[in-house]
Structures are given as structure tokens and as C-alpha cells.
């Protein structure tokens, strides 16, 4: 077995996991499949690109800005649009979030053109070698940053008052509102938080991928696979799902055929949906079923 392949897969998988958390959280708490996540990811990537390109801000330092901007956008979109459409059911939600995705993606296309751009900090070339496998510093840093953000989010959800309110709302919205949780606010907060998370994932991704308006579309499909693998609503599930997807992709690309990499992950997606719709690790963290 080639360790290099596995390590590459794991390092990429961490990013997949982080990217999928927002989607998973929204699904778990609000019972919405949010197809606009891809656009938020792209926007996060562009924020990093422009800050780095125009003012030379270190890409890692753009994370909080990315998070703030996307939190604001997400909060606004939830409280102005999603909230009003929620009661029309899941078909309408799928379509409206896809519409938002188209709108945002097109806005970025018009504003910043379809050019491929990249973020290349000075340290992006170097790396370390362990036992024959080389690990670029930047990939390692991205991986660690992704895990730290996941840890932070987990802490927020399980240890803070607001995080507990989010979890209570996901278990039972009505009951949560009886005990004094402002569920409307919690929904907007959750959506904003999810947008911020995926935006930060986009910021990290911009350092290893080329940035263009279609970046989010590529990652959206990976987000599906990761979420379904890990079981929706579960943060640790998303991370493990991300790692599994990353390794599977790397193995398929180097041992089967690079052209079949995506096909394998989509087939995996459909098979898991059919045989284990609750995800690989069984129990869902959040309560919403169906």
C-alpha cells in the first residue's frame, strides 16, 4: 500500500469534512437540503483571494472575515427568504435554495468573470518528508485548521447556551419554543453559522484549488457524499465521512482510473442511501427524521 496516496486522501478529506458540516447542520436542525452551500463556499474562496491579492493579507488571517461576511449573508437570507418558504415543504426548499445558488453564482460570474485564479502564499511550495511520503506544509496546515474549526464548532454546540438552544430546536422545534427558545432566531443563527463554516472551508480550499465561480458546484457534489456517508446532522460523522471520501477518491484515482474517481463516489452515495440511509455510523446526532 502506498502511504503517499492515503496521506493525500486524508489531508484532502479533512477539507471535505469541514465543507460538509454546514450542509449537515442545516439538514439536521432545519430539515432543509440546502443547495446554496456551494455558492457560499465559492464566496468564501473569493474573499480570501481578493484580500490576499489586493492587500496581501495572509490567507489564514482571512478566515474570520470570511466567516463574518458569510454569517451576515446567511442570516439575512434565512430571515428574509428561507423563513418565508419553509412552510411550503421540501420540494420548494430544494428549488429555492438552488435558485439562490444560481443567483449568487451568476453574480460572482458577472462581478469577477469566469477566470481561474489562485492564492499562492510564499510558503505554498515547501513540505516535510516522513518515511518516504512527502507532506506539503500548506496541506497539513489546512488539515489542522479544518480540524480546529470543527472542534470549535463542536464546543459551541455542546457547551454554550446558544449551542444547546440549537440542539434543542433540532430535537423538537415546538418543545424548544415552549421552554423559551426563540426558534426563529435559532434558525437564522444556524443558517448563518452553516454559511460561515462552509465559507471558511472555501477560504481554506482557495489555497489548494483554483478559484472560479464554478468551484462551489464541484464541492457541492462532494458535500452530498460526505453528509450521506456520515449521517446528516452529525458533525463527527461529517469529518469521518470526509476522510473516507478523500481516501476513496485518492485510491480510485491511483489504482483504478482517475476518470472514474467521481463515478465511484456517486455510486457510493447511491448505494449508501439505499442500504444505510442513516449513514455509516448509525445514530443521528440530531432528532429530525424523514
Amino acid at each position, binding site marked *: 500500500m502506498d502511504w503517499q496516496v492515503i496521506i493525500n486522501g486524508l489531508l484532502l478529506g479533512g477539507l471535505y469534512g469541514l465543507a460538509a458540516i454546514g450542509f449537515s447542520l442545516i439538514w439536521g436542525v432545519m430539515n432543509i437540503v440546502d443547495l446554496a452551500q456551494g455558492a457560499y463556499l465559492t464566496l468564501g474562496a473569493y474573499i480570501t483571494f481578493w484580500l490576499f491579492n489586493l492587500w496581501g493579507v495572509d490567507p489564514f488571517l482571512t478566515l474570520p472575515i470570511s466567516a463574518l461576511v458569510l454569517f451576515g449573508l446567511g442570516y439575512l437570507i434565512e430571515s428574509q427568504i428561507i423563513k418565508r418558504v419553509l412552510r411550503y415543504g421540501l420540494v420548494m426548499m430544494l428549488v429555492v435554495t438552488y435558485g439562490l445558488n444560481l443567483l449568487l453564482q451568476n*453574480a460572482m*460570474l458577472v462581478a469577477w468573470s469566469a477566470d481561474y485564479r489562485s492564492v499562492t502564499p510564499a510558503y505554498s511550495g515547501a513540505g516535510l518528508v516522513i518515511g518516504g511520503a512527502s507532506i506539503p506544509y500548506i496541506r497539513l496546515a489546512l488539515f489542522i485548521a479544518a480540524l480546529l474549526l470543527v472542534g470549535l464548532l463542536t464546543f459551541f454546540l455542546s457547551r454554550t447556551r446558544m449551542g444547546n438552544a440549537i440542539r434543542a430546536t433540532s430535537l423538537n422545534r415546538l418543545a424548544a419554543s415552549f421552554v423559551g427558545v426563540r426558534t426563529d432566531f435559532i434558525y437564522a443563527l444556524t443558517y448563518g453559522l452553516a454559511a460561515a463554516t462552509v465559507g471558511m472551508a472555501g477560504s481554506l480550499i482557495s489555497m489548494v484549488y483554483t478559484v472560479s465561480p464554478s468551484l462551489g458546484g464541484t464541492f457541492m457534489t462532494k458535500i452530498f457524499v460526505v453528509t450521506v456517508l456520515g449521517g446528516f446532522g452529525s458533525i463527527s460523522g461529517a469529518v469521518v465521512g470526509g476522510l473516507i471520501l478523500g481516501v476513496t477518491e485518492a485510491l480510485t484515482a491511483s489504482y483504478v482510473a482517475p476518470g472514474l474517481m467521481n463515478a465511484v463516489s456517486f455510486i457510493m452515495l447511491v448505494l449508501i442511501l439505499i442500504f444505510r440511509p442513516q449513514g455509516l455510523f448509525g445514530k443521528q446526532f440530531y432528532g429530525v427524521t424523514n
Partner: protein
Amino acid sequence: MDKTVTAARKRSPAGLIILVLAAIILALLPLVIQGYWIRVITSLFMYAAMAEALNLVVGYAGYAAFGNGVFFGIGAYMTAILMTHYKWGFFPASAISGLTAMLIAFILGWPVLRLRGHYFAIATIGINMAVMEIVTYVGITGGGKGISLPLYPGDIVKQGMFFYYSMFILMLVSIAITAWIVHGRLGYGLRAIKTQPDAAEVMGIDTTLYKVYAWSISALITGIAGSLNAYWLTFLEPIYVFDIMISVEVFVMVLLGGPGTILGPILGAFFLKLLSELVWSQFTLIHMGVLGLIIVVISLFLPAGLMGLLRQAGRWRRTAPQSLGNR
């Protein structure tokens, strides 16, 4: 429920007359228009047929088949392969393409249609993407470079007429099939499944079987639309025929027209396509964004679609003004 059904039955003669008139006008239209508009209306018919096909699954059974465009691509590629590699004529190739799409839906339907809600929607997207990747990879399809079909024999006017009337007939057939299903056992079963799946199961409806039937018929129509479209354009690329945007656009047509009504999706398709042709065909750069905006606006202000709006208007006229407030 009972009341609305009888009301619909009572109203139907007037509706039928309008429908027949519209059909006659559309059938005679090629005498007046030509070239560009023939093409526009041909694609209008195609989208209308696909919207009607999707309506069976989304509107009646209530299942969000977000990746239904996969059958469009399968139909297109099947026709292309049979016509170029095996030198088949168009009609047998098209029939086999439709049946292939139907068969695939039938086989996939058993496991996939047991999934509910979001799971089904994501599974259909997954199937769409998986098939696209496989078609791109496999050699016989020409891969990512695409595949060219033989040209329609005959001059360009004859070609235009052929596709105009083929798509027209496909649309009429899709309407007829929907009307037939809606008033039959399958239609009642599907509506029962949409309203209360567990209750439907208890009442003795084989829910999975009914959903599989609906999806298969939907796939048949979509597959033939894909087949005709392939022969019409004579060039295919995976990235074009399996584009998730096709599914989305058709989805929006169904929602815009009114899901779960016979003529709603047709109305939605005509409205959206004509609007896009008249208003923003010149602004290709913002085409996607405007579609997105339309989607958001529909969801916010017109959740029951155009048919819902018409019905609402009718209800207001009849019962005005005392019951305006309750909803």
C-alpha cells in the same frame, strides 16, 4: 377532496374546448411562422413534455426527483449509439431509447423510491452525476469529446417540420397519459401516497409499485424527449445532456405552472421558455442569475403556481367578498 374532483369533471368541457383549440392553433402554426420561431416552439414542446413527465413524480406522487434529467441524457445517448455504431433508423432507435430509460427507472425505482424526502432527491442527483461520469468514461459514447449523429435526410424546412410535429405529438401524448393516469386507479393511488404515505399503505396500496410505475412512465417520456433532442441537435456531450440545469429548469416549470395539475406544467413550460426567449436571450451572461431570481420570486409569491393563481381567482369571483380572509 370529493367536491373538487366533481367540480373539475363538471368544468372539463370548457377546458377541453380551449385545449382542442390551442392544439389546432399550434398544429397550424407552421403555416405562418418559420425558421427561428419553429425552433423556439419545438423546444417549447420538448420542455412541456418533460415538465408533464416530471409532474407525475413531483406533482402527483410528491417525490422530488431532482435528477430526472438523467433519463433525458440516457435517451439521447442510447439513440446516438444505436444510430452511429449500429446504423439503426431513428424510429426504432428512439423507441429503444425510451424503453431503456423506462427500464432503468423501473429497476432503480425499487430501491430508490423507498427513500423518502431529501434522501430520494439526493439519490436522484447522485444517479444523474454517476451516469454522467460513466458516460464520459466509457469509449462507445465518445467520452467527453462528444458524439455526432447522422443528419436528418431532407432539406432544412422538412427537418424543421419533422421535429416540430414530433415534439408536438410527444407533448400531446404526455398530456393524454397524465390525464388518463390521473383519472384512473394509479392517479388516486399516487395522490393518496402524496397526502399520507403510511395511510395509503394501510389501505392496501402497494406504494412502492405505484411510485415505480409513475417514475417509469416519467422516464419513458423524458427518454424519448432526449432521443428526439439528440437527433435534432445531431451532437451530444455528456456535460450538456446530463446538465443538472435541465432538471432544474423543468422542475421550475412544474412549480411555476402548478404541480399536480394536468395543464399546469405545460403552462409553466410555455411561460418560462417564452419569457426567457423574448426577454433575456440576448443577455446570456445573466441568464442563469435571472432564472435564479425567478425561482426565488415564484417560491415567495406564487407557491401554488399559475394554476393555483387561476383557481384562486375563480374562487374569489364565486365566493367574494365574505370569505376573502380565510385560507
